[in-house]
């Protein structure tokens, strides 16, 4: 029995050691680094000075502004499209659901870097395929989708293409876990498909919507790959997004200490943004919990997990 007591620690050990080394340690080391600055060739302790500098660094805050604007656009297009598709596929109006589920989810199999490159080519004036459609809206004048003004919308489109199907898959699974009795009752009361979707399915999707929104916030604030890839096709400011700024601060300008401070600040902003979002959505949570309880009663599994849908749910 004595040996048995050691077993769980032995099983946990490889994970724990690597987790400690490549997650916990870097996290605190990042903060430690941010307290120093290189002055006249040597590293000096400067306390929170890097943070004070960051607070008045307009390059950093303008990048935060960009990703907040981007985040709102992205959340609307990715989550809304994902949700509408899921609601359609869950309704009785559609045939060939398996086909659509597959097609919409397919971009998940494409690496983000390659997706960004493909769309970058499709946007390129030299290759010119998509542009002509947009010219129609611009009175026949040509539109450069990769110009600084349009860049953000071009990125939103890439990210929508990549992630809408992913979110659809999450919503669809959550919908499949809902009890059909609710729809039957609504139908008897005279609801049509659209009313059922709007009045019954949507409110019950709330926990999943909150959850995907949080993921969306975290993802948006960290935007890096798409602008980084597009920067080889067009000019992207080095401080276009916070992560791009942090990357350039460290690897183009070699200022690791300040870069670490910015990383920490970004993590903090992300955390605060998530909390603010949770605060504003939790007002309705009690009502939602009541509905959720109703849904839970009809679930196959009794095991409540962190996410609203159980393992092995119909997907």
């Amino acid at each position, binding site marked *: 029995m004595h040996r048995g007591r050691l*077993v*769980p*620690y032995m*099983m946990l050990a*490889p*994970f*724990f*050691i690597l*987790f400690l*080394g*490549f997650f916990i*340690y*870097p*996290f605190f*080391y*990042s903060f430690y*680094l941010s307290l120093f600055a290189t002055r006249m060739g040597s590293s000096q302790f400067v306390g929170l000075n890097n943070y004070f500098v960051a607070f008045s660094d307009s390059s950093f805050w303008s990048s935060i502004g960009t990703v907040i604007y981007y985040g709102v656009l992205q959340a609307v297009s990715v989550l809304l*499209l994902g949700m509408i*598709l899921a609601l*359609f596929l869950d309704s*009785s109006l*559609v045939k060939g659901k398996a086909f659509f589920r597959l097609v919409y989810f*397919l971009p*998940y*199999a*494409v*690496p*983000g*870097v*390659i997706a960004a*490159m*493909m769309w*970058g080519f*499709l946007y390129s004036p030299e290759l010119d*395929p998509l542009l002509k459609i947009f010219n129609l809206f611009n009175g026949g004048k040509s539109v450069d989708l990769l110009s600084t003004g349009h860049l953000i919308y071009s990125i939103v489109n890439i990210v929508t*293409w990549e*992630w809408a199907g992913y979110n659809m*898959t*999450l919503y669809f699974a959550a919908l499949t876990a809902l009890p*059909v009795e609710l729809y039957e009752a609504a139908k008897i009361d005279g609801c049509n*498909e659209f009313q059922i979707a709007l009045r019954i399915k949507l409110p019950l999707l709330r926990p999943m919507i909150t959850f995907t929104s949080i*993921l969306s916030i*975290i993802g948006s*604030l960290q935007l890096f790959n798409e602008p980084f890839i597009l920067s*080889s*096709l067009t000019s992207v400011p080095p401080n276009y997004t916070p992560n791009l700024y*942090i990357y350039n601060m*460290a*690897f183009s300008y070699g200022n690791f200490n300040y870069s*670490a401070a910015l*990383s*920490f600040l*970004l*993590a903090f902003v992300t*955390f605060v943004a998530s909390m603010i979002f949770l605060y504003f959505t939790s007002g309705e949570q009690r009502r939602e919990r009541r509905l959720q309880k109703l849904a839970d009663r009809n679930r196959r599994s009794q095991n409540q*997990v962190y*996410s609203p849908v*159980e393992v*092995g*749910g119909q997907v």
Partner: protein
Amino acid sequence: MSASNSTLGITQLQRQNHARVTPGKRMTTIVVMIVLILVSTYFLLPLVWLLISTTKSGSDLFNTPMLALPSHVSFFANLHLVSTYGGGTFWRWYLNSVFYATVTSVLSTLICTMAGYAMAKYQFKGRKFMFSLILGSLLVPGAALTIPTFLLIKFLGMMNSYQGVIIPGLASAFGAYFMNIYIQEAMPSEFMDSGRVDGASDWQIFWRISLPIIRPGLVTYFLISFIGSWNNFFLPLLILNNSALFPLPLGLQVWSTYITQAGSGVPPYAQIIMGSFLSIMPMIVLFPFLRKYIASGMISGGIKM
């Protein structure tokens, strides 16, 4: 087979009934189907464009309409071009990617499964703490770790090495969390007890009894981990500058920087398009068979990789 028919639950029947189309709905159905098909073309367009573009030479790309085949199909010429461009490193990158993704996903699956299993099936001091640590870390954006991870790898002398790319990604908090949840649900503790009665050690129980039972969960996490490391870009970007070690996304990204760089010859559009096509091909072909496993894992963990 008949057993699965007889276990068809009430809800399943109701669901089928619920899904029946009545004649009055026909018009709405047609409208909705048209919308869904239009959306499908949006999702398929870049992939179809990529496939067609692999048949075009560099000049055809600019001179033929986007979705039209060229008069002369240069698919094999492009294949030759991509294989020889830049000293013929493309297939080396391909092998690197296969190597990174395979080693990372196999090891990560094993490490995370052991951790999840220990937390799901054993009571020990620090179990709760470990679990909250893992949950909390899921909320920390990776950006906060970039710089110190880079410096750590440098300190360990793992710059420009296979280990440097593989090791930092092994202990996935998502993986441990997912396996923990899965094992709690799918693996009854009674099996462990009966193994003990038969005199098996804890490790024998783990390898011989538990792993076979939780195989579907292993497959799911393995696939998610494989795709995650196949797509991995940021860490290799930071720690590799020896192009012989590049994974595909990084290699292709470097090629794409030649497009606007002055003095690097003809822009390698055709090479990048063929290279992109070849690197997404295997996953696109396998995806219809793997979708179910991937989706079930995503949903129970629900974390963007």
